[in-house]
């Protein structure tokens, strides 16, 4: 059993299978939940909005926003919940092509000393409304 469990819960957006779709410029509201199984001294609890390229090209990662949710001691057996809010930029849109993909995600990370930082990510879809096309699951499902 790991020392800590992390969870990202998102509100708003349009649910598509196991992912949520937002429009460029939309506001993302969510909650980061941390379940410590032992006492942990967290230097920072970060939540980040970021995107990266995937596919054949060398991956490129861009952090669009970062919030420092908490600094201090997380008590064993005491779940902590932190609300957060991001505003999506106008670009880039999510994309899945032949050689290039653009993937958006929200990352929850606990900054710890001398050990690997535990992380959790939640993928999101950033897609504008396009007249005559509403079934996004057929394209990305």
């Amino acid at each position: 059993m790991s020392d800590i469990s992390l969870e990202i819960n998102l509100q708003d957006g349009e649910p598509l299978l196991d992912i949520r779709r937002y429009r460029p410029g939309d506001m993302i509201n969510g909650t980061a939940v941390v379940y410590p199984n032992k006492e942990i001294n967290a230097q920072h609890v970060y939540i980040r909005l970021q995107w990266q390229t995937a596919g054949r090209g060398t991956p490129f990662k861009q952090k669009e926003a970062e919030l420092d949710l908490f600094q201090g001691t997380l008590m064993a057996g005491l779940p902590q919940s932190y609300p957060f809010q991001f505003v999506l930029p106008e670009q880039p849109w999510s994309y899945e092509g032949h050689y290039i993909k653009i993937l958006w995600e929200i990352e929850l990370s606990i900054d710890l000393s001398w050990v690997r930082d535990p992380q959790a990510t939640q993928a999101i879809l950033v897609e504008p409304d396009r007249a005559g096309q509403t079934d996004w699951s057929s394209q990305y499902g």
Partner: protein
Amino acid sequence: MGLQMEKSRNFNLRHSCVFFFGLFWVGFSSIFLVVGIVSSDWVFIGIGSLFTLAGLAILAYGAMQLFTRYLIGQPTFTLSNQHQLHVGEILTVSWHHSFPRNVIVDALQVQLIMREIATYQQGTDTKTVTHNEIIDSYEEDGREYNAGEMIHGHYEFQIPLSGMHSFKVRRNEIKWVLQFKLAIARLPDFIDEYELTVLPQVMTNV
């Protein structure tokens, strides 16, 4: 009202580069050939000859490309919009050209292309792969044109509503290109490319 199109700069350079690269290759490899001949070293003569022949082939291809451009000249393109396009937008392309010399054109093609360019590292090599997604294409049969003969065309293309905006970060690029191609008998194709900028905005009244 249309705007005269700006040609893709990289594409323009490529034509002269092949020729000058071939010239450099021939010059460099012929040193080995000359050294081999002077010293009667058959290994140098053999390797030098192979490299010089390869260089001459590159040089000949580069020269043929330049000759094609000399034969055709430079067509004039006008586009309703080149750098402020929206996803879903319809763009009109007009072109006209007066051939400076007699030429036999096998076919004419105008294509709207969405191109993915991905660069990656493999060992110590840097490799680039390109994928062209042909969105729409117009083709016309060619014929023999006389010097001074005027041709023109007018086409409509649409950036598809499901399309992606232009995108460029380190080693990953999505670009929109309008490609104009003339297939010339017994010569390399005449190809001009014009880069379009598609903004991350959807046309609302399509």
